[in-house]
């Protein structure tokens, strides 16, 4: 077959149940099996030789393409295409920050295949979904041989391609405990279909009466900045509070340079992005 790039050859397993998928994982030698959801990250890892796996475990037949609201809580199946998540009217109105973050991922045609489970599995420093999941206190539901366990996204994500996932586990779902006024803003060369140099996610929890501020775009991983969140009080913080929170985040966050942007440029972006995000969030106030 003609093609411009080398394509790695492999075998494909397509289990129909979680039990079958888990038993395939359990019986494989370490690193022998690669898990495939949308493939928009994994196929590069295979073709470029970053993964030596010669068997691919496809999740496509598992019944995990789900989206369920339970009151104010939302559970998103790990293999639900991002475009389907974006098309849910509740996500758009009740979780505006998540909606904006999903729309920031690649293009429509990419989002018809790419999944939330895959975004967490890859755990990229410039992920557009991890920062908003941090601001929403989202949890990852994992299934393994001993059953299910739940881990906060903040604990799950450890660095680029580094997560708390054990080799015999799969990501089943992501749970967002409550709909929150939220916002996601970023700086890129092009507003769509590009990689973020700097991104800010904020959310206000009506239940905890507190703010969460997350930053992303720089290595090693998206982070929460609790010192900034603590300076904001109530659903509509004062201008002085917003400015102080933004200055604090710009100063304290462990921002570094990489090939895409300098540390100085990134720190300079934090303040305007964070101020705008908090204001957008406060004005969407009663959206939940």
């Amino acid at each position, binding site marked *: *077959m003609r*093609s411009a790039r080398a394509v790695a050859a*492999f*075998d494909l397993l397509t289990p129909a149940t979680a039990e079958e998928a888990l038993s395939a994982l359990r019986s494989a030698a370490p690193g022998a099996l690669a898990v495939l959801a949308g493939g*928009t990250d994994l196929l590069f890892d295979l073709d470029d030789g970053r993964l030596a796996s010669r068997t691919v475990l496809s999740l496509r037949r598992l019944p995990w393409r789900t989206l369920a609201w339970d009151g104010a809580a939302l559970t998103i199946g790990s293999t639900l295409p991002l475009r389907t998540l974006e098309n849910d009217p509740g996500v758009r109105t009740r979780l505006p920050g998540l909606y904006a973050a999903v729309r920031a991922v690649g*293009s*429509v045609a*990419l989002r*018809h295949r790419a999944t939330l489970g895959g975004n967490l599995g890859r755990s990229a420093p410039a992920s557009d979904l991890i920062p908003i999941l941090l601001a929403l206190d989202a949890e990852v539901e994992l299934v393994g041989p001993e059953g299910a366990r739940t881990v906060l996204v903040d604990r799950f994500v450890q660095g680029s391609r580094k997560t708390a996932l054990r080799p015999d586990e799969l990501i089943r779902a992501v749970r967002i405990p409550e709909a929150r006024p939220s916002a996601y803003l970023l700086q890129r060369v092009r507003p769509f279909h590009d990689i973020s140099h700097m991104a800010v996610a904020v959310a206000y929890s009506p239940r905890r009466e507190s703010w969460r501020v997350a930053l992303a775009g720089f290595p090693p991983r998206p982070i929460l900045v609790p010192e900034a969140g603590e300076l904001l009080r109530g659903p509509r913080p004062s201008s002085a509070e917003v400015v102080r929170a933004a200055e604090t985040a710009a100063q304290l966050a462990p921002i570094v340079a990489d090939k895409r942007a300098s540390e100085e440029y990134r720190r300079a972006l934090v303040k305007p992005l964070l101020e705008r995000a908090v204001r957008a969030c406060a004005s969407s106030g009663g959206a939940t």
Partner: protein
Amino acid sequence: MTSPVLRLTVNGRPTALDSVPVAERLLDTVRWRLGLKGTKEGCRTGGCGACTLLVDGRPTLSCLTLTHEVEGSGITTVEGVSEDPVGARVQAAFEAVGAVQCGYCTPGFVMTLTGLLKERGSAEAFEELLNDLAGNLCRCTGYASIVRAVAAVREKSP
């Protein structure tokens, strides 16, 4: 590393394929196995949209899709898009306003826009529709006429 028979419906026709390697991309199946060269290979890394076709009506990057992963699905390529009334309108609009220079990006734009209009109807705001086309690049940079084609399709939408 191959499987005996793989079934797809391609432009409305049931198609059975033999011995497709599991690593094969839908782009290669369509272009080299089925000989449908309307679907273009640009970057092969998800960055340009030239390879976009419809899988069960949804715009999909065929360069990042394993053919086996869409087994049993309906594939629409630019060769079959005029059989769909929305697709026919999109094609006619690109032609009418001359939104085609070298034409390499055109199938990708036509398929993405067709999929978007079928998914969202004419309810989608114009700005939003343009943002949703951001994954399609035109290396001839003929964007102004492409935007005019999008506007023309929307005007003619029922």
